[in-house]
């Protein structure tokens, strides 16, 4: 496997120009997730509007995989119904944990398919999931508040 197939252009591009990387204040939930093995950190603000994911904004430091994956997530899930967002998230997690077995369906996880290669590198799985897990966490906190 060469570097290009892990670090697809899409990933490097999101890394350089991350989407939604600026916190919008007054979220329904704010969470901070750490990658305890490297010290990387994601702060995520969630805004809901009824059953709609209105904004996902974030800040943080991390490797290209974690930054790009968070960027992709924030782009993909914003504007979705909550249950739709959760089902996309589940599809993405499944691909990432597949140890190279799944390629992912672009129809469902969009740019997320670029991360399929990450699933072959167990040490990087956490990086690819950190933003998604932060979203999941924020969502359950947000729903609890409703």
């Amino acid at each position, binding site marked *: *496997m*060469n*570097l290009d197939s*892990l*670090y697809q*252009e*899409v990933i*490097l*591009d*999101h890394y*350089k*120009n991350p989407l939604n990387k600026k916190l919008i204040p007054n979220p329904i939930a704010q969470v901070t997730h750490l990658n305890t*093995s*490297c*010290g*990387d*950190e994601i702060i995520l603000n969630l805004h809901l509007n009824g059953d709609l994911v209105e904004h996902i904004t974030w800040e943080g*430091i*991390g*490797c*290209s*995989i*974690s930054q790009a994956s968070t960027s992709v997530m924030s782009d993909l899930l914003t504007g979705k119904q909550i249950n739709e967002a959760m089902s996309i998230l589940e599809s993405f997690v499944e691909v990432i944990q597949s140890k190279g077995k799944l390629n992912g369906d672009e129809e469902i996880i*969009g*740019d997320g398919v670029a991360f399929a290669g990450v699933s072959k*590198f167990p040490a*990087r799985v956490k*990086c690819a999931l950190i933003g998604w897990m932060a979203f999941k966490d924020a969502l359950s906190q947000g729903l609890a508040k409703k």
Partner: protein
Amino acid sequence: MSGLLDVTTIKRDFPIFNRTIRDGQRLIYLDSGATSHKPKIVLDAERDFYENHNSAVHRGAHQLAEEATELFEEARLEVARFLNSDGSEIVFTKNATESLNLLAYSFSNSSKNSRFHLNPGDRIVVTEMEHHANLIPWQQLAARTGAELTWLPVTTDGRLDLSSIDSIINAKTKIVAITHQSNVLGTINPIKEIVAAARNVGALFILDACQSVPHFKVDVKDLDIDFLAFSGHKAVGPTGVGTLWGRAELLNEMEPFLTGGSMIESVTMSSATFAEAPQRFEAGVPNMAQAVGLGAAIRYLNGIGMENIHNHEVALTKYALDKLQSIPGLKIIGPTEMKNRGAVFSFTMENIHPHDLGQALDQNGIAVRTGHHCAWPLMRVLNVPATTRASLYFYNDYSDIDALISGIYEAKEFFTAPRTKERK
């Protein structure tokens, strides 16, 4: 081109160098700071124990038990001689982390009038460059006893700042626990100077020697310290075995830590009295094969010669420092002068996250470590979220450093090249 030792020959002792990495590439292992590889002779010693002498030590009167006990106790003597100490002063643990926890727990088990007892207001001094293993046990001990944990700061070039040592290691100080060599920075600390400060106020001095004992001669008498911890697995020994060295008179005054079989003098249902050190601190059937393997590891290191290992690493360090510093955008986190510095190199690269750099190097068969290296507070002090770390041993040579350097250039090229493709 090679270092001062004949690395080609040495590598033949280490079976792992027969394997390849990521589709047939040579293994360039620059992660010995995390764990070292093992020569065949160590694996053979463990195996010989299991195949020919396996039995519970100190417990049976039969021939296997006798032989197992003799091998185990010989290994203890081997470790003792290596540190210039005595067999009664060597406790086998599972790793250095346990050795340090043993001290912290034994101290909090001690009774009010013991020299090991800490009272609120007493001080424990560490440094900002400690590995979590020599920090959290003391945080916890401080929390259990009400003692105060404080520390010697680190300068921006990765040295200890000793300018306020006398106010930090003050009359309240009971324990000073410090790393010999930083696993992140490579800095070798001026132990004798700090020991003198500790002695001045009557504090115990504990040395975390994980990164020194495998790399150069450490003499506990010469350093005049009280306790020392190191791990076998970083010193070409097996996993699952560490060492606590302590002055005999201190060990024999200390309360036990783990309790159970083989560490007792007498037991009733409601109370127990305990054996002398080192048995007092070795509860249960010990890591026998691993201790025997560690003995073999130390014989192997002695065969190469600690002085030769040190000189070899000095040569590599000089070479690596020059080469690394010539890379544009690379910043060494730690001392850039040779003095009191080991062959451990942490660095950051402009615009490349350490994880990505580590991954890129891995694709070339180069094993480095990335992250906070279990020294998260140090990262905060130095204001880096993480670093890439290359740590060398006597089985590395100049060509490994060359590979690292070109790997870094390649990664730089890959991650910082201008890109055209549009996001979908």
